[in-house]
């Protein structure tokens, strides 16, 4: 498994009609072509997500058309829209309830940073304060093509995940957590305001 077959030998064999693969490639091939997103939307980005799932943009071409209404059956969480502080604990709880392996796409300016509401009092400054995000899509709202691009980026990320070794995928590592603490409603803000395990603001040298 860890010993990769030589690429040139593989193409040569394929030319002769012999198809060779590794367990890892087979596993990732199966996973990346049937990603089931969790069906929920938070704001206007959700309309673009619906458009992406509908016939004109057709996310089914990439195997992601099965939107599941239950977190237990979903692989991917598309955080489409503004996450208010009142909504954030529910989002984290839904993420915790998803079965491994699970991925998150933060769609739109609000989901990645709070967007136009960043300096406001009731909008979370990005969902990556509480849960790990795999792909960020900027835009307000991003076009369906952007979501498809993010989806393909996620597919290539899944394709590159290792089955064994030191750099194996997060969900295969027993030491990596699968659940993250759910913030509670505090007197002035969510408590804690961020999860330092997941998110650390960039330090700038001035």
């Amino acid at each position, binding site marked *: 498994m860890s010993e990769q077959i030589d690429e040139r030998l593989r193409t040569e064999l394929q030319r002769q009609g012999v198809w060779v693969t590794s367990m890892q490639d087979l596993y990732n091939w199966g996973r990346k072509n049937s990603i089931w997103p969790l069906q929920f939307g938070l704001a206007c980005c959700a309309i673009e997500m619906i458009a992406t799932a509908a016939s004109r943009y057709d996310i089914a071409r990439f195997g992601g058309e099965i939107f599941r209404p239950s977190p237990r059956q979903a692989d991917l969480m598309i955080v489409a829209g503004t996450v208010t*502080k*009142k909504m954030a604990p529910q989002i984290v709880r839904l993420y915790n309830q998803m079965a491994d392996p699970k991925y998150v796409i933060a769609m739109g300016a609000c989901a990645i940073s709070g967007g136009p509401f960043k*300096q406001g*009092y*009731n909008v979370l*400054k990005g969902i990556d304060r509480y849960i790990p995000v795999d792909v960020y899509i900027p835009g307000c709202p991003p076009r369906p093509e952007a979501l498809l691009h993010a989806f393909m980026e996620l597919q290539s990320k899944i394709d590159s995940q290792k089955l064994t070794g030191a750099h194996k995928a997060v969900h295969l590592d027993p030491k990596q957590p699968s659940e993250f603490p759910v913030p509670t*409603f*505090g*007197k*002035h*803000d969510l408590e804690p*305001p*961020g999860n330092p395990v997941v998110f650390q*603001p*960039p330090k*700038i040298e*001035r």
Partner: protein
Amino acid sequence: MMESLEEIKARIQAAAPGVKIDIVANGSPSQQHSLLIDNEHAVGIAKFLRVDPALRLDFCSNATGVDWLDRTVKKTVKVKKLVDGEEKEVNETIEGKIPGYLEAVYHLYSITHKHGPVIIRMRTADRTDGARLPSLTPIWRSAEFQEREIFDLYGVRFDGHPDLRRILMWDEFQDYPMRKDYREPDDYEWEPTPHDEVLEKAKQHYPPRPAEEELKPS
């Protein structure tokens, strides 16, 4: 054509003597002047506005809050004074202090007569313990959620409201975020292009290096 605010005021005061009503002028191009009604008789006045056959203001389209901080108002008054032995008229500025208060503003329309808006205001005694107003929800049911919102964001307590709870923020929240002196929790992280107020925050969190200070032209 709807009658003017002066006429409405006169008719209310004729119907119920002793009711205090002021007209708050709006100097902006919209010219939407409003009636400042007194809190004690507010429900009665509201009922009058609703049932009066000429007005029939049966629809409260909007209720909102306004926060007024303590302000100082400067007035120039001509005062007679002795200057160099003779009496002269001198302009003198007097500083007056107006204590802060919270305000609730209601926009009323009539669906029966197709006219409006008539704007009424109520003012609280102060911004702390006296921030109470009578609820107009018994008169206009549509004010229920909007009064809850005013309570949530401005902290005005409405007496007689059927269900006064926070509506947008969570129940454990203790601040009133639309008040002018609200300070959000200091959760500044990092901003690629800070400016204005955000730049001030950035300076607090990321103090500039001493070398940079020296380089700055004094």
